[in-house]
């Protein structure tokens, strides 16, 4: 493997070598960390940096897809964006879908992880079971949820109709569409996050729990004062990655639209998210400059939200 190429220390016995060995040791201590993180940054520089800079550059132009003579507009795309009601609409939709999906998702994921962390029979089976939705290909997800939430023939509406609540127009109603999309998101990602939390729970030394048990702490007490604090790095991880992923939400609203392939997010953009708007601007309207400005604005929003969430989570789980 690649690892063998990294500097390995050879055991040598003779006295004069000790000084060299010390020096090598120091070098090892100093350089190793950089070598370990280098692959990430190397590949990123190769394939990530260029697209990033390119997008930043393009965002300063009125650049149409395939256009050779783009006009420099400076921050024009950004000022236009700030005054664009469709952008703000998309941002509100994104945050609404994000909150509707993430909050229950993180709570349920932790709960499922707690359940899975017990001494179950068929443990592996249960753990793999919760991850099953993540296996589904997106084509299947689109078909499945298109049929579940179909307005006229969907299973959900059939059930609602049967129990007397009546049919809900999942496509037309803004909140209903957000709920349906949040359901799709949670279906796909809750089990996944549960396993992440579970892995962290297993890393908690059992002695801690045993000691608390001897001290007579109940299960809830043990959960709040041992498990949760020990989970802090992981909960921070889950919260930040779901913030980032949630604010970039794209696949689910795109698949949810009753118009196959449409990026409008419904008849009045009622469930168009920011990335969907970005995508529509870039590939349907072919306004790459504008789309790039959306991308950078979204980046800013995500960073702010992630920082905010980081501090909130740190405080809460302290």
């Amino acid at each position, binding site marked *: 493997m690649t690892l063998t190429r990294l500097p390995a220390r050879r055991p040598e016995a003779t006295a004069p070598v000790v000084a060299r060995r010390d020096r090598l040791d120091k070098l090892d201590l100093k350089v190793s960390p950089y070598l370990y993180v280098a692959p990430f940054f190397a590949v990123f520089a190769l394939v990530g940096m260029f697209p990033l800079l390119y997008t930043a550059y393009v965002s300063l132009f009125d650049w149409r*897809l395939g256009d050779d003579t783009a006009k420099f507009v400076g921050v024009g795309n950004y000022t236009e964006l700030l005054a664009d009601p469709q952008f703000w609409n998309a941002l509100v939709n994104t945050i609404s879908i994000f909150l509707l999906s993430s909050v229950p998702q993180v709570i349920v994921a932790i709960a499922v992880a707690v359940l899975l962390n017990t001494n179950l029979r068929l443990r592996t089976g249960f753990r793999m079971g919760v991850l099953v939705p993540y296996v589904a290909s997106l084509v299947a997800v689109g078909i499945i949820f298109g049929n579940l939430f179909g*307005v*006229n023939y*969907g299973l959900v509406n059939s059930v609602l109709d049967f129990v007397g609540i009546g049919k809900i127009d999942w496509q037309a109603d803004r909140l209903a569409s957000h709920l349906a999309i949040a359901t799709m998101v949670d279906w796909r990602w809750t089990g996944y996050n549960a396993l992440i939390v579970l892995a962290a729970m297993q890393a908690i030394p059992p002695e801690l729990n045993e000691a608390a048990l001897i001290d007579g702490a109940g299960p809830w007490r043990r959960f709040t004062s041992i498990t949760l604090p020990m989970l802090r790095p992981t909960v921070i991880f889950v919260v930040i990655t779901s913030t980032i992923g949630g604010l970039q939400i794209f696949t689910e609203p795109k698949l949810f639209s*009753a*118009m*196959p392939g449409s990026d*409008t997010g419904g008849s*009045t953009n009622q469930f168009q998210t920011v990335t969907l708007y970005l995508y529509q601007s870039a590939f349907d309207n072919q306004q790459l400059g504008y789309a790039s400005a959306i991308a950078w604005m979204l980046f800013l929003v995500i960073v702010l939200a992630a920082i905010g969430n980081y501090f909130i989570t740190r405080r809460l789980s302290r």
Partner: protein
Amino acid sequence: MRQRLLATAIATAVVAGLVTACGAGDAADSKIHLTIATFGEFGYEDLLKQYQTEHPNIVVTQHKVGQAAPHHKELFTKLAAGSGLDDVEAIEEGYRAQVMAKADKFNDLSKIGPADAGPDRWLPWKYEGGKSKDGKLIGYGTDIGPLAMCYRTDLLQTAGLPSDPDGVKALFSSWQSYFDAGKTYVQKTGKPWFDTSTQIFNAMHNQHDVGYYDQNDNLVVATNPDIKKDWDAVTQAIADKESAKLVSFGNEWQAGFKTSAFATTVCPAWMLGSIEQNSGPDNKGKWAVSSAFPDGGGNWGGSYLTVPLQSKHPKEAAELAAWLTAPQQQIKAFVAKGPFPSQVQALQSPELLNTTNAYFADPKTGALYADLAKKLTKAQYKGPADGQIQDDVFAPALQAVEQGKSAADGWQQAVAGAQKAAK
């Protein structure tokens, strides 16, 4: 142990991947390698074999994508990136305006193509549709989608409406008579008349001389009286409960056929297959195709073959595209997979005229569509953002009205949306 096995398997796969990837280079021979990118079913598989037999110095590779949307996404991405396009690229009618806005990235086929691929090969409107604004010939027409009206004979009967071929002609003679018949149908049965307002509106729209743009690329959505008239007529029909509000090609639309949710639908030639599949064997013989279409004819869909400037063998690529779109070849493609030919001679061929479809009440569909295709005389001029205005502005606005928005608010949404898209 098992873990090691897995690791070995993965490592082997990685090595295999690198080898495969490196081994896939071009063969170093003197033959000319051409590539052609299509989507859906063009019916070219056997034709390409034939072409290579007849041209031993040419090797053709076909790249197929299932659906039009990803195909065009790939096309535009590679157009923007400046490389990676095939020598021949198919484009669909719905994306024609977007492609024409980038006409400078394509070869002028009237300059590099063979002489026999002249204007008289195609229906005049199809040939004109392949031209850019400045008169360059960007695409050779392949197939078209002449519009007919399909209707359920049994459902019309229950509503007391005429359902024989001659009887329905009166119902389908104009949009006015069509909507009036719909009103009667709704009153008698309580069920919707057509599947979706979007396709009705598009069909009406495409019959006008001037559409969303005038010839000088000025957006005229707000000022073109025809558009507002169509809008009013269609939204009135929605208010009269004539629309089943099913989005074309969605899963609910497919289900609507099976459950007999509506009595009529606009049906281009290529849609007969999907009507049959969607409605299922239980409804065999109940659907009929009328030779009358409200206020004349129409076209929905069809494609062109283009040769991007990126092609390294433009002349050979144009020759291939010209050969494929010749009447003899398009007839074979029609027989193989069903795309309806756009070539004048092909429309007179017995293979086409004698085509029947036993699923429908009156099975002589080939001759019927050939007649409808000839009824069209010219193509409406399409401006740069025409495609988005149709699909991302007017279609959602009509859907919004179907979902309960007022017609006036919907109109505002459409006009504002069109202005934004055209910016």
